[in-house]
């Protein structure tokens, strides 16, 4: 996280000088896309590999990040043009400063697809934490204040009817640290996307006790966002990006979520994703991990505005964002269908 901060600061410092660059004329635009090594970033990868971006006159270049926060800062500074990330305190804060805008939706919890899981350590489970209602007074792991984990933890508390303060939140700053803490019983509970959850519950140390879908309705987990500069001065580029992205989404859902694609084509999609995700494993090993627990990404990058509003309300109630923050400042609804 230290490096993250340094990274961010470096990015910002660079930013002040490089504000107005994107040329509006050329049909062949080079676009920098921020990428995390997660399956949920697959639509951009597929769109690039299958030439969907090229059809839109976009040459895509990927920039890898280790966490969502530096990616958001890099987009604010103009070093990266588009990215996909969860709505976090940092993102809202940047939006309030007029640096970034959410222009579409990505990963979303839907009733028919397996969503994020609530996990507890074996120790806590034996100690009687068998349903989310038992989480009162327990230690819940989060990465940072204002992260999606923080939001989910509080939504559980709200729905189960105990005070938010009864959940003892433990800030661990990185997903590996949360996993290490959960497996060693240093924390009691955590919530995470199904493909990571699946890997954990297969072992001895971690038990699933519920799903997030029971607590957050149609949770808009991640969104597509870009810099305010592009939204205002080059909206047409954003539209073309979303068009290419949406084709990637369609392929992703067909291959991994709805499984309507032929096995041959699906394997091809998996191979594309493997170029960027689970690269440390051979394809045979990565294949099941990529397929397992794929969550739906909204067709045409539709955005669940209701969920965004709910998240915004929560951020304000926890004083994690300025009181004057609004959804209008965060989201530009002119690009995609909202609901």
């Amino acid at each position: 996280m230290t490096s993250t901060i340094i990274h961010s600061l470096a990015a910002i410092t660079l930013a002040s000088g490089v504000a107005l660059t994107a040329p509006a004329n050329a049909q062949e635009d080079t676009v920098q896309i921020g990428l995390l090594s997660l399956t949920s970033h697959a639509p951009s990868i597929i769109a690039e590999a299958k030439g969907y971006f090229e059809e839109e006159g976009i040459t895509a270049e990927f920039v890898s990040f280790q966490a969502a926060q530096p990616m958001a800062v890099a987009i604010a500074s103009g070093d990266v043009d588009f990215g996909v990330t969860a709505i976090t305190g940092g993102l809202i804060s940047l939006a309030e400063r007029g640096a970034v805008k959410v222009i579409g939706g990505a990963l979303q919890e839907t009733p028919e697809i397996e969503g994020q899981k609530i996990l507890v350590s074996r120790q806590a489970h034996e100690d009687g934490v068998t349903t989310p209602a038992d989480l009162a007074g327990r230690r819940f792991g989060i990465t940072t204040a204002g992260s999606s984990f923080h939001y989910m933890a509080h939504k559980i508390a709200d729905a189960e009817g105990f005070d938010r303060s009864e959940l003892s939140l433990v800030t661990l700053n990185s997903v590996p640290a949360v996993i290490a803490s959960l497996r060693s019983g240093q924390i009691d509970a955590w919530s995470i996307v199904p493909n990571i959850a699946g890997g954990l519950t297969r072992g001895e140390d971690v038990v699933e006790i519920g799903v997030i879908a029971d607590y957050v309705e149609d949770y808009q987990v991640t969104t597509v966002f870009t810099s305010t500069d592009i939204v205002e001065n080059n909206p047409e580029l954003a539209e073309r990006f979303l068009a290419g992205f949406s084709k990637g989404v369609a392929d992703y859902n067909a291959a991994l979520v709805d499984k309507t694609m032929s096995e041959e084509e699906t394997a091809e999609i998996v191979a594309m994703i493997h170029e960027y995700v689970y690269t440390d494993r051979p394809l045979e090993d990565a294949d099941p991990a990529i397929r397992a627990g794929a969550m739906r990404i909204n067709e045409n990058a539709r955005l669940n505005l209701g969920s965004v509003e709910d998240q915004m309300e929560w951020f304000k109630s926890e004083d994690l964002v300025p009181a004057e923050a609004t959804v209008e400042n965060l989201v530009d609804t002119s690009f995609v269908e909202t609901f």
Partner: protein
Amino acid sequence: MSLDTTHAPVTSAAVPRPVAPSGARPVPFRGGGFRHKPLGFVGPLVFVALIALWELGSRTGFISPIALPAPSEAFAAFMDLVQTGMLWTHLEASLYRLVVGWTFGSLLGVSVGLAIGLFSFVRAGFLPLVSALFPIPKIALLPLFIVWFGIGEGSKVATILFGTFFPTVIATYGGVDNVDRNLIRMGQSFGLSWLSIVRKIIIPGALPAILSGFRISASIAIVLLVAAEMIGAEFGIGAYILMAGALFATDQLICGVAMLSILGLTISFFIGKAEKYFLNWRT
């Protein structure tokens, strides 16, 4: 010059003063410079001027608020901390970790450093180990620290302890190696016991190196504070900075960083005092 003066009284005033031929010029001055004058007021002046410039830049919009918050905003964040009383909560948590981690790291470091300096067997066995472990970034071991020391104070103190241990070991055994061999021989020639020689000659002789090691290890401890407080810290300056980073609250970020810097200055001041007190025998 000297010839002139010795001759002058003998030949009396009749000799006219030497007249410089036309075109004579003074020897060009080439000395001066390369010498430091104590200008104590310049440091604070530069500091104040920079802050003023920064504030001006932020007010006029030359410095984008995304790039850097105005110093006044950072100060406002600081006043928030003071008013809510959170300042003391954060400071207390961090100071506890720093003091415990640094104290034990230094004690262990000095002990191991002395052992390496005094016993060939320990040196042969441990020195390669120290050299191998020193460069490992302790941050990389955080997930393991969680399992070893828990997410309570254990892993935080351990991070700082490990960070301060190695530089102290190296400073201490280096100090022992540099103790004047002749003083040790003197001690032996007067029949001083081994323990007396260590206590009265080697340790005081190594003290300057140990204290400058402390200066470095204290800075390292502060640097590691942020890393240490990545693991399950609710309070602490490092945790405050991390949270500010996550929420992109740059005013709080700068405020937290400034607090660390002031903490560093304070510690450096006290070590300076300790050096003055313990090393007054140095020229």
